[in-house]
Structures are given as structure tokens and as C-alpha cells.
């Protein structure tokens, strides 16, 4: 009998972690030859994307922030460098650009998101951004070094986008940079957002707006970017407003991966319709989606991809062992936001609890920096116990037949208790 194949598309945080966690918890099946794990990676390199901020606003060297994908996945994983061109959910097959199709028993779509400035008229030519690549982030560093005075706009050009705190961080770090150069009073910094406040979550926005006010960063709200006229150096909104700029830094509109769009398995923006609890793709019990690729109404961030990967790995393991357990993601987010001058806050919440106001501190800043150093080890999946301890409940039991799979790491939530009561 040929081994069952768990196929993972994408080698971002979610894809690599799912592969590594699965390889760890299903090692006996892999060893016995009844299971294989295949990871399709379009790129040889995996980038630590949060470092783009350091590249853009601190001039950090981009070559410090990537590793070869092959060095990050466990040896028992079948790593294929190729581009997925079509996902056929009905026939359990994925077509690749340079070789024959791959069949699967379980699929994990971890194809991420793509920043596309071309989606808005004039934006690609007019703006620089740190969301599409480290090389593009470096262009920002080069540009701000040439500026001695003028107007800089940080504009959110589409939602949702990767890392919700990152536009605020950009404004804070610009302020810090020009203060350090001693020319802050000659540079106007405007933060332009489609939301009604400086950060979408109320409690966090209060902190940001107070700091923006102290640092003389102007906030423009309810501005949904419609077009840019680079000749006149102006941005225009659907709401009928315009603002002039000398340097335009944008968070481009984001879309699902090309393979999701070409396979017709996403919504109009290319996000895969996904159950926000057990992470299955709508109408399929053998296909999952995680991270930026999904349509669930939550932050597109590394921490979300990370926590969802664990839920998916345990759900697949549960299916393979026939335990009947289903795990759910509770919507946990935990995103750091640097506010300049070596201070940060964490944006922390779940589906049921909104992020609360926090006091910026150096300890939180150091935690963010420390995580950056620890990141490559985290991808191994060997430190999930630590995240379980830190967050308390990364995943919870949606339902159980009472059989045990991994008793040590199980966190029983309200839903599971309800189901168990019914079973008893």
C-alpha cells in the first residue's frame, strides 16, 4: 500500500511549521512507511519578513534575514522546489510548473499573500513599500537618506494587509530617524488610513494617537486610496480627498497567491474561504488553509500562521489516527508594535476578546527583538511547548470522542466540555 501523502503548499512561517510539527508528531508513521509529508516551495529562500522594517528605516542589511528553505525543514520531509500552478480540490491533485502533478490525501494551503501596488492606478510608479520584498524595503532607506525636508506620506492603500501594526511602526520609525538626524522639524509626516482612527482596535489606537500627537505625526482617517498622480505628486481617495507628497510610502493592496486565484478556490481578492476554527477549506474535510492565504477576519501575521499551523497539524494527525478529535484555533493574535526609541506594545486578543490598551515599554521592545533572533529555531516546531505555556490555549478541542492523541498538550475548552457532556 502506498503511503498517505500530506501535501503542503508554501514555505512561509505557516507552511514550514506545519511540515515540521507534522513530521514530529507523526514520526512513527513516517518511519513505518505509511505516511509522507511533501512541501512545495516556490522559493529557495525563506525571509524573516518583520525585518523589512529594520531594512527600510534602520538600514539593516537584508542578507542577514533569510535562510535556505532546505536548512529549515526536517530531514524526513520531501521538499520540492517548484511552483504550484493549479489546485484541484475535487481530484486531490496539485499541478506544478516543472513536473507532473502531485496527489494528496491531505492538503495544506499556506500560499500567503502578495502585495500588488499595480492594483491602484499610479501607485506602483509613485510609491515605495516594505511589504513586497527586502530589496524594495532597502529603496525606502536610500530615499529617506536623501531627504532633508518635505512631506512624507505613509498611506495604507488597501485592506487587509500583512502585519496590521507595520504602517504605524513605519511612521514611528520615520519620526525617530529624522529626529536622530536633527531635521525632524523640516519633515512633515502624515499617516493616512482607511480606518476611522490611527489603529483599527480602539484600545491600541488610543495609545498610538497619543504618541502620534506627541511626535507631531498627523493622522488622516477614512481615506480609501483610489489613485495616485505622480506628476502632480498627489494621492486621491474614494471619499473625495487629496493630499500632496514629496515621498510616498505605501502599504500596497494585498491579494491571495496567484495559484489560489487561477484555481478558482478563493474569493474576489483571492483569499481561500476557510473555517475560522478548524481551518478546513469550505466544503472540504481533506484540505486546510492557514496564514495570510485565508479569508478569516483576523490579522495577516506570522503569529497567526504559526498558531494555525499547530491546529492543522493536530487535526491531520487526529484524522490519521482516527481519534475523532477536532482542534480549533481561538483567534489568538499577539503582534508587537514598535513605537520608536526602543519601546513597543503588544496587540493581543482572540475571537472573543478585543486587544486592550497597553503601556509602551522597553521590555516589550526587547521581547520583539529577542523573538527575531529566536525565529529560526521556532520554525523547527521543537518549541511549541513554550508557546503553549505562554499563550495558555493556542488550540482548543472543538469535539472529541474521548480518545487521547496527545494528552500532554491538550487544552480542553468550553466547546469540548459541552460535547463530552453530551457523549456521557
Amino acid at each position: 500500500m502506498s503511503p498517505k501523502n500530506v501535501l503542503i503548499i508554501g514555505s512561509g512561517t505557516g507552511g514550514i511549521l506545519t511540515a515540521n510539527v507534522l513530521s514530529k508528531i507523526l514520526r512513527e508513521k513516517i518511519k513505518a512507511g505509511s505516511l509522507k509529508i511533501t512541501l512545495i516551495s516556490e522559493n529557495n529562500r525563506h525571509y524573516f519578513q518583520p525585518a523589512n522594517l529594520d531594512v527600510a528605516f534602520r538600514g539593516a542589511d537584508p542578507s542577514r534575514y533569510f535562510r535556505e528553505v532546505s536548512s529549515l525543514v526536517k530531514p524526513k520531509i520531501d521538499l520540492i522546489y517548484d511552483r504550484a500552478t493549479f489546485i484541484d480540490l475535487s481530484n486531490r491533485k496539485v499541478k506544478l510548473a516543472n513536473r507532473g502533478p502531485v496527489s494528496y490525501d491531505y492538503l495544506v494551503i499556506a500560499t500567503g499573500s502578495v502585495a500588488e501596488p499595480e492594483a491602484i492606478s499610479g501607485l506602483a510608479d509613485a510609491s515605495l513599500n516594505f511589504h513586497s520584498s527586502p530589496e524594495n524595503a532597502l529603496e525606502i532607506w536610500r530615499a529617506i537618506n536623501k531627504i532633508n525636508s518635505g512631506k512624507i506620506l505613509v498611506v495604507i492603500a488597501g485592506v487587509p494587509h500583512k502585519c496590521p501594526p507595520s504602517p504605524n511602526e513605519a511612521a514611528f520609525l520615520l519620526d525617530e530617524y529624522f529626529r536622530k538626524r536633527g531635521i525632524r522639524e523640516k519633515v512633515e509626516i502624515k499617516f493616512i488610513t482607511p480606518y476611522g482612527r490611527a489603529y483599527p482596535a480602539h484600545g491600541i489606537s488610543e495609545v498610538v494617537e497619543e504618541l502620534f500627537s506627541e511626535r507631531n505625526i498627523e493622522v488622516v482617517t477614512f481615506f480609501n486610496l483610489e489613485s495616485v498622480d505622480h506628476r502632480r505628486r498627489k494621492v486621491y481617495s474614494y471619499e473625495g480627498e487629496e493630499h500632496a507628497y514629496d515621498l510616498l510610502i505605501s502599504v500596497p493592496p494585498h491579494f491571495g497567491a496567484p495559484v489560489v486565484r487561477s484555481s478558482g478556490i478563493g474569493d474576489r481578492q483571492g483569499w481561500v474561504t476557510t473555517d475560522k476554527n478548524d481551518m478546513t477549506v469550505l466544503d472540504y474535510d481533506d484540505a486546510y488553509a492557514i496564514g495570510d492565504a485565508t479569508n478569516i477576519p483576523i490579522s495577516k501575521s506570522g503569529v497567526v500562521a504559526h498558531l494555525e499551523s499547530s491546529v492543522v497539524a493536530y487535526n491531520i494527525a487526529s484524522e490519521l489516527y482516527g481519534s475523532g478529535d477536532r482542534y480549533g484555533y481561538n483567534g489568538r493574535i499577539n503582534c508587537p508594535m514598535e513605537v520608536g526609541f526602543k519601546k513597543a506594545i503588544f496587540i493581543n486578543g482572540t475571537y472573543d476578546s478585543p486587544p486592550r490598551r497597553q503601556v509602551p515599554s522597553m521590555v516589550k521592545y526587547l521581547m520583539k527583538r529577542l523573538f527575531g533572533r529566536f525565529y529560526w529555531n521556532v520554525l523547527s516546531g521543537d518549541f511549541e511547548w513554550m508557546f503553549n505555556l505562554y499563550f495558555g490555549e493556542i488550540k482548543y478541542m472543538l469535539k472529541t470522542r474521548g480518545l487521547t492523541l496527545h494528552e500532554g498538550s491538550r487544552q480542553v475548552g468550553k466547546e469540548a466540555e459541552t460535547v463530552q457532556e453530551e457523549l456521557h
Partner: protein
Amino acid sequence: MSSEINRRIVDARGSFCPGPITELFKAYREAREGDVLELLATDPAAKSDVQAWAKKTGSEVMGIVEEQGYIRIIIKVVKKAR
């Protein structure tokens, strides 16, 4: 030109960050004048956020209904500036 009025349900329940209004923006970009959008949200801030946004965009809040555990906000896209 078609005069058909579209009605779209935007389910943003469970979203606090980046928040339900994110889903509304997505729908608004694709909407045409006259379209009706129904936003479902669990975030209590959605009510005031949508009212402020509607005022800014000239959209009409046709109704706010308290459902079991969530709110349903009905918005008509009256005019798009550009």
C-alpha cells in the same frame, strides 16, 4: 448600464483586529451606487465606526439590528466620490 441593485452580506463576526470595518471597506470598493451592504459584527465598536464612516462617505445607514450575540448593520451606498 444595469440598474440592478446588489445586496451583499459581509460577515465579520469574531473580528476585533483588524476589525469588522476592514470587511466593509473591501465590499465598498467593489460596490456600485445603490448597492446595499449588510455587515454582521460582534465588535461593539462596529456601530459607531460604521456610522462615522457612512457620514464621511455619504452612505446611508438604513438600520442597525441587535441579533443574538451580534449586530447587523444595513448600509446603502448612496454615492461614490470617484
